[in-house]
C-alpha cells in the first residue's frame, strides 16, 4: 500500500498547485467586465446561436471504437506481463483473442467507421 | 384384422388430408367425405362380427412403443363396452356428414375435413388403452369441434364455441394431473412406471383411499363436464343450439357419451372405493339432472334447446344406471348411451332439415305443419316416441334396465328418476303437438317435405331404433361379459370394504 501513498500525495500537491495558481492573481488582476468582452468569440460578430448543437456523429463513432479497442488493449497488458507463466496455451488464447479483435477491426473498416470524409 | 383399430382411427385422417389437398370444389369434398365415412362404417362391420362376445377382455389389441422414455405406448383395444361406442361413432358420423350436404353452404372443404378429423379422434378415445394416448385423443377432439361450432354455427356461435372449449378443457386438465399422479403412484407401488389403463385398473382397489378420492374427483370433474352432469351442464345448451346440425348430432350422439364412458372405464375400476363412497353424490346429481333437465326443457321456446336439455335429462339416466353398480344398471346405462346417441342425433337432424327450410327454430313459429310435410311429421313422431321411451323402441329398453338396476341399489332415487320419464313424455309430446298440429302459421306456405336424400339417411336410424327396441340382445350380448367382469370387481371391493 505504501507505494500508493506518494501517488496520493502527488495528486494533492498537483491539485494544490493548480488551485493556487488560478487564485493567486485574484488580488492583482483587473476586473472590468463588459458585455462584448463577456461574449464568446465568433470572429468578432455577435454570437449566432448556442454552440451546443448536434455535431458530426463520426466523433461518436470514434469514441465508441475507442472504448471497445482500448478495453481490449487492457486485456493484453496482464497477458503480456505473465506471458512466461501462461506458456503456449496463453499464446494461443491471445492469438484467438486478437483474431476476433482483428475481425471486428476490419469489419469496422469495411463498414466505413474509420473513414472521415 | 389385427390392425383394424388403427385403420379405423387413421383412415379418416388420411381421407381428410386427401380432401384438403385434392379438393377443388365443395361438392367433391362432400362426396369424398361421405364415401370415406361410409367406408369407415363398413370397416366397423367386420369388427363387430369378429368380436368374441364370450370374452370380457380386450380384443383386437395393438401395442407399439411410442414414447419409451416415459413408457408411453401406442396401445389400442376394444371390449364389449367400447365396441358399441365405436359402432355408434362411425354410424352417426356417416349420417351426420350426409345430413350436412345442404346445410353447410360455406367453406365445405374445411367442414368435412374437420368432421373426419373429429371422427378419427372419437374412435381413438374409445379404443385407447393407454392413458396418455387416451388423453391425446380426448383433447384432440376439441379443435375440430371448436371450429365446427365456431365457423358454421348460428348467431352466438363464437360464445358457444369458446364456452364449449374452455369448459371441456378445464375439466380435462385436471384429468391430466390425475393421470400423471396415477402414473407415479402405480410406479411407486409396483416399480413399473406405465400409463397402461388395464394394469392401473387392475391395481385399482389397492390405491389408498385419500389418493383415490383425489383422483376420483379430478376424473369426475372432467367427465361430469363432458356428460354433462347437473351443475356443469351450462355449456351444453349453448353448444348444441349454436352448432350446425352435424355438430349437434356428433355432440349429442358421441361426445356426451365420452363422459359416461370415462366413468365406466376409469372411475369405477381405478378408484372403486372412492366411487362407492361417492355414489350418493353421483346419484343425487343424476336425479337432479333428470328432473331439472326435463323441467327446463319443458319451458324452452326453441326446439333445439329443448332437445338439448332433454339430453341432460337422458344422460342423467345413464349416470344413474352406471352408479347402480349392478349388471342391469350398467347395461341399461350403456344401452341408453347408445340409444340416446341415435335418437337425439336423429332429432337434431330433423330439426336441422326443417331449419334449412324455415330458418327458425322457435316453436311459436311453427304449427300445423303435419299436413304440409306428412313424411317429416311421421319420422319426427317416431323419434319423439323413441325419446319418451315408448316400449318397442330403443329408449324404452335402456331406461327400463336403468330403473331396474337403480331400484335394486337406491330405490328412492330410482323413484324420483321414474318421474323424469313422465316429465320427458310431457315436454316431447307437448312440443310435438305445438309444432305439428294446431293452427298453421301463415308464414309457412312453402314448405317442402323431406327429399329422397333426407329420407335415405333417416331410414337407418329408424331401423336401429326399432331394432334396439325389439331385439336389444344384438347389442347387449356384446357387453355382457365386460360388464360382468366390471361388476364382479366392484363387488369384490365393496365386500372388502365391509
Amino acid at each position: 500500500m505504501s507505494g500508493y501513498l506518494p501517488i496520493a500525495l502527488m495528486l494533492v500537491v498537483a491539485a494544490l498547485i493548480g488551485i493556487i495558481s488560478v487564485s493567486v492573481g485574484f488580488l492583482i488582476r483587473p476586473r472590468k467586465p463588459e458585455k462584448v468582452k463577456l461574449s464568446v468569440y465568433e470572429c468578432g460578430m455577435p454570437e449566432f446561436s448556442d454552440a451546443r448543437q448536434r455535431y458530426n456523429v463520426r466523433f461518436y463513432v470514434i469514441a465508441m471504437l475507442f472504448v471497445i479497442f482500448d478495453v481490449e488493449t487492457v486485456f493484453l497488458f496482464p497477458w503480456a506481463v505473465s506471458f512466461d507463466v501462461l506458456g503456449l496455451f496463453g499464446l494461443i488464447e491471445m492469438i484467438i483473442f486478437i483474431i476476433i479483435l482483428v475481425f471486428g477491426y476490419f469489419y469496422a473498416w469495411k463498414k466505413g467507421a474509420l473513414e472521415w470524409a | 384384422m389385427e390392425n383394424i383399430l388403427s385403420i379405423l382411427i387413421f383412415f379418416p385422417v388420411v381421407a381428410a388430408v386427401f380432401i384438403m389437398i385434392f379438393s377443388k370444389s365443395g361438392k367433391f369434398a362432400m362426396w369424398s367425405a361421405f364415401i370415406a365415412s361410409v367406408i369407415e362404417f363398413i370397416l366397423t362391420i367386420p369388427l363387430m362380427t369378429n368380436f368374441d362376445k364370450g370374452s370380457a377382455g380386450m380384443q383386437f389389441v395393438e401395442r407399439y412403443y411410442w414414447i419409451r422414455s416415459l413408457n408411453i405406448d401406442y396401445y389400442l383395444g376394444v371390449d364389449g363396452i367400447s365396441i358399441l361406442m365405436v359402432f355408434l361413432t362411425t354410424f352417426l358420423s356417416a349420417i351426420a356428414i350426409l345430413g350436412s350436404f345442404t346445410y353447410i353452404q360455406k367453406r365445405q372443404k374445411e367442414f368435412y375435413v374437420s368432421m373426419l378429423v373429429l371422427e378419427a379422434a372419437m374412435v381413438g378415445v374409445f379404443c385407447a388403452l393407454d392413458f396418455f394416448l387416451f388423453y391425446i385423443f380426448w383433447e384432440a377432439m376439441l379443435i375440430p369441434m371448436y371450429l365446427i361450432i365456431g365457423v358454421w354455427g348460428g348467431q352466438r356461435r363464437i360464445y358457444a364455441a369458446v364456452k364449449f372449449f374452455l369448459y371441456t378443457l378445464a375439466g380435462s386438465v385436471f384429468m391430466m394431473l390425475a393421470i400423471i399422479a396415477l402414473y407415479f403412484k402405480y410406479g411407486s407401488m409396483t416399480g413399473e412406471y406405465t400409463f397402461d389403463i388395464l394394469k392401473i385398473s387392475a391395481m385399482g382397489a389397492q390405491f389408498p383411499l385419500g389418493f383415490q378420492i383425489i383422483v376420483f374427483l379430478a376424473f369426475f370433474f372432467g367427465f361430469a363436464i363432458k356428460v354433462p352432469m347437473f351443475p356443469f351442464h351450462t355449456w351444453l345448451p349453448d353448444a348444441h343450439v349454436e352448432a350446425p346440425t352435424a355438430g349437434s348430432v356428433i355432440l349429442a350422439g358421441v361426445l356426451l357419451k365420452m363422459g359416461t364412458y370415462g366413468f365406466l372405464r376409469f372411475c369405477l375400476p381405478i378408484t372403486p372405493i372412492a366411487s362407492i363412497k361417492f355414489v350418493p353424490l353421483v346419484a343425487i346429481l343424476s336425479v337432479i339432472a333428470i328432473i331439472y333437465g326435463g323441467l327446463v326443457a319443458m319451458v324452452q321456446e326453441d326446439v333445439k334447446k329443448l332437445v338439448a336439455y332433454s339430453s341432460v335429462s337422458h344422460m342423467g339416466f345413464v349416470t344413474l344406471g352406471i352408479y347402480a353398480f349392478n349388471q342391469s344398471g350398467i347395461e341399461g346405462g350403456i344401452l341408453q348411451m347408445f340409444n340416446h346417441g341415435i335418437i337425439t342425433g336423429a332429432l337434431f337432424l330433423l330439426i336441422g332439415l326443417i331449419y334449412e327450410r324455415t330458418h327458425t327454430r322457435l316453436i311459436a313459429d311453427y304449427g300445423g305443419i303435419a299436413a304440409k310435410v306428412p313424411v317429416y311429421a311421421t319420422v319426427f313422431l317416431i323419434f319423439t316416441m323413441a325419446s319418451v321411451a315408448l316400449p318397442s323402441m330403443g329408449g324404452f329398453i335402456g331406461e327400463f334396465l336403468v330403473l331396474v338396476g337403480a331400484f335394486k341399489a337406491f330405490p328412492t332415487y330410482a323413484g324420483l328418476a321414474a318421474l323424469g320419464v313422465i316429465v320427458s313424455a310431457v315436454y316431447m309430446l307437448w312440443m310435438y303437438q305445438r309444432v305439428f298440429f294446431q293452427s298453421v302459421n301463415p308464414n309457412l306456405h312453402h314448405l317442402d317435405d323431406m327429399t329422397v336424400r333426407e329420407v335415405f339417411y333417416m331410414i337407418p336410424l329408424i331401423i336401429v331404433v326399432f331394432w334396439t327396441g325389439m331385439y336389444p340382445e344384438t347389442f347387449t350380448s356384446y357387453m355382457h361379459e365386460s360388464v360382468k367382469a366390471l361388476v364382479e370387481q366392484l363387488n369384490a371391493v365393496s365386500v372388502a370394504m365391509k
Partner: protein
Amino acid sequence: MISNLVSIMPELLMTIFGLVLIAIDVMTRKNSKSGVGYFGIFFIIIAVLASIPVGGFKIFGFGQTLVWDMYSFAFFCVFAIAYILTTIGSVDYLRERDILKGEFYIITYFSIVGMMFMVSATDLAVLYAGMETMAISMYILAGFEKKNLKSNEAGLKYFIIGAFSSAIFLFGLSYIYGYTGTTKYAEIAQMISANGLNNFNIKLGMVMMLAGLAFKISAVPFHMWAPDVYNGAPTPATGFMTVAPKAAAMGAIVRFVWIALEPAAAQWQLFFSILAVLTMTYGNLVALAQNNVKRMLAYSAISHAGYMLIGVVSMNELGYQAIAFYTMVYAFMNIGAFTILSLMKNKGIIEDERLESFAGLGKKYPIISLAMLIFMFSLAGIPPLAGFMGKFYIFTSAIKSGVIWLAIVGVINSVIACYYYMRVTIFMYFKEPEYEVTVDMKAASFIASLIAVVFVLVIGVFPSFFMNIVKFMIV
C-alpha cells in the same frame, strides 16, 4: 489443455464461424444480405453436428469453470433451432422494412455464443460473461429498426433495465464470492452443505443474483421491461428474443440450482414456486386484455417462463429435462407464430398486429391461418401438438416431486391462457374482415413457418426423439 479446448469447442467453432460471417457480410452486396443468414444456418448446423457429445461424455474445462455435456448440447439445439427459424422467417420482414442487414444475423449468431457459455457455465464469472454477451446483442436486436421509434424505445428500455438487472446480479454475485470465497458452483455447493444457508449475506447474494437472472427470463415481478420490448422490437427479433435468451437463462438457472443450490434445494423451492405462480398468473391475466397480438404474445411469453419455472421448482432430473424440452418446443411454436405475425400488413388504418387484422384471415389465406391455428393451440397446450407435450412433461415433473398444488395452478393457468390464444383463431375463422389485410407470404417465410408447423406436429405426435435429446446424465 486439450480438454480446455474441447470443452469450449462448440463455442469456439461458433465464434470462428461468426467471424467468417462477418467476412461474408462485408463481401456481399447490399441486396443479397440474406445470404449471410443462410450461411449462418449452414454453419450452425455444422457446429451442432460437430459438437454432439457422443455417448453422453462430459468435459470440464478451464479449471472446472465450464462444461460441455448433453445438457449444454440440448440447449445448443434450442438455440440453433431458434436461429434457423428466425433467420429464414425474418428475411422478408427485414427486406420489407429496409433493414435487411448482415448484422442482424451476425448479432443473433454471436448472442448464441453467449447463450452457450451461459448454459455450460459452472462458474459465475463465465455465466456473467455469457449473459452479457447475450444481453448486449439483444439490446441491439431490439433496437434494430433504427428509424422506428418503437424499436428505439424497445432497445433503450431493454438496455436500461437489462443493465440494471445485471448490476443487481453482479452485486449478489460479489456477495456470494465474498462469503463463500469462490465463484465455482461446485465449491459454493460445498460451502453451503458445510455451513448451511444461515449466512444472511450469502442468502442476500443468492436472492439478488437469482433476481438478476429472473429479469432475463422476465419472471414477475421482474418482467416490467418485457411487454414493451417484445412489442417494439422488430417482429422476427421478438420471436428470437422470447425464445433463445429465455432458454439460455433457464438453462443457466437450472445448472446453478442443480449444482450450487443442490444442498439447499428445499429452501429454494418456495422462492421459485412463488416466482412461477406470479409469472404464470400475471402473464396470462394481462394477456387476456390485449388487443395487439404481438403484445399478447409478449405477455404469453412471460407466462411461459412461469411454466418453465415449474420445472425448476421440481428440483429433479425430470424437471430439468422438461425445461430443455419445453424450450425446444417453445422455439418452434413461438417463432412460427411470430413469423406469421411479421407478415401481417394492413394499409395503415390500424396497427398491423392488431387482433382485428386477423379477422377473416381463415377464408382469405387458409394455409397461413391453419399454421397460425396450429401455433396458437400448441401454445395453449392442446394435444396432439408439441406444446402439450412440453406442458405434460413439466407437470409430470412437478407431480413427481410432489408439488401438486403448483401443477394445479399451472393447469388452471393453461386453461385461462387458452382463451386469449383462441381469440386469435376466433378472429381468423369466425369473424368477417373489417379492414383489408394482406399477407405477403414469400418463399422464405413460407419455409420457416412450414418447418415450424411440421415440427410442432411431429414433436406432438412422436416426441420420443426429441425427448431423448434432452435426456442427460446427472452430475
